[in-house]
């Protein structure tokens, strides 16, 4: 019996690619890969608006914002779909991925803006009541 692993680099590449690009894996991560591609579009758009930065910082920014968008897209879409009956969460995934990646580095300011707008609306409503 020969249990020695084959250390030929080409054989290793073949095995790694067979696992990485398998149909079984694609069935599981396929939808998430599409969300990731859309998140890359959003984060690259945001990156192009930021001041000039180094290659390393660009890579870190793209990776972090895309990862954040990847994690938050499905919960955020479900949240929006729960409030808007006409929408299904699946319809929102790609748009939400782009949006979340685009605002990823401005989330605190964005949240403050939304809260301020909601508070303003609530205050105006209470002021008009007799």
């Amino acid at each position, binding site marked *: 019996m020969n249990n020695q692993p084959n250390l030929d680099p*080409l054989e290793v590449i*073949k095995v790694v690619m067979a696992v990485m690009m398998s149909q079984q894996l*694609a069935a599981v991560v396929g939808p998430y890969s599409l969300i990731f591609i859309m998140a*890359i579009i959003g984060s*690259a758009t945001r990156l192009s*608006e*930021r001041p000039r*930065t180094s290659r390393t910082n660009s890579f870190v920014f793209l990776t972090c914002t895309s990862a954040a968008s990847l994690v938050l897209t499905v919960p955020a879409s479900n949240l929006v779909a729960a409030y808007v009956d006409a929408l299904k969460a699946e319809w929102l995934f790609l748009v939400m991925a782009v949006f979340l990646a685009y605002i990823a580095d401005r989330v605190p300011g964005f949240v403050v803006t939304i809260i301020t707008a909601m508070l303003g609306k609530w205050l105006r409503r209470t002021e008009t009541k007799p």
Partner: protein
Amino acid sequence: MNFTLPPLDPQLMLFINLVLSCIVAGVSGCRVGRMHQVLWRVRIQYILMLAMALTHGFAPIVTRDTVGWASIGFAAAVAVMLVLDSYQWPDGDAPAAAKATKPAEL
């Protein structure tokens, strides 16, 4: 006459395609990071190039497509074009023609 390219293991073709696509995505990502004050149409070129290079590299997962010699050849052509085009980006700066211009002072 029956001419065909030499057969290559599909996994190796996937690997070559992934490497070429990562080169394209890497160059595009670096340039996107230096596009402050660059025209929008130039930004869109590189943003789409970045996203589609990743889609192409991971095609078996994203779109469940197979990769052939034509795909590899095209990815290689784009990678070579971007690398040889680097003379237009001295020190990583966008070419002057790509930068947003201000209206002429009166």
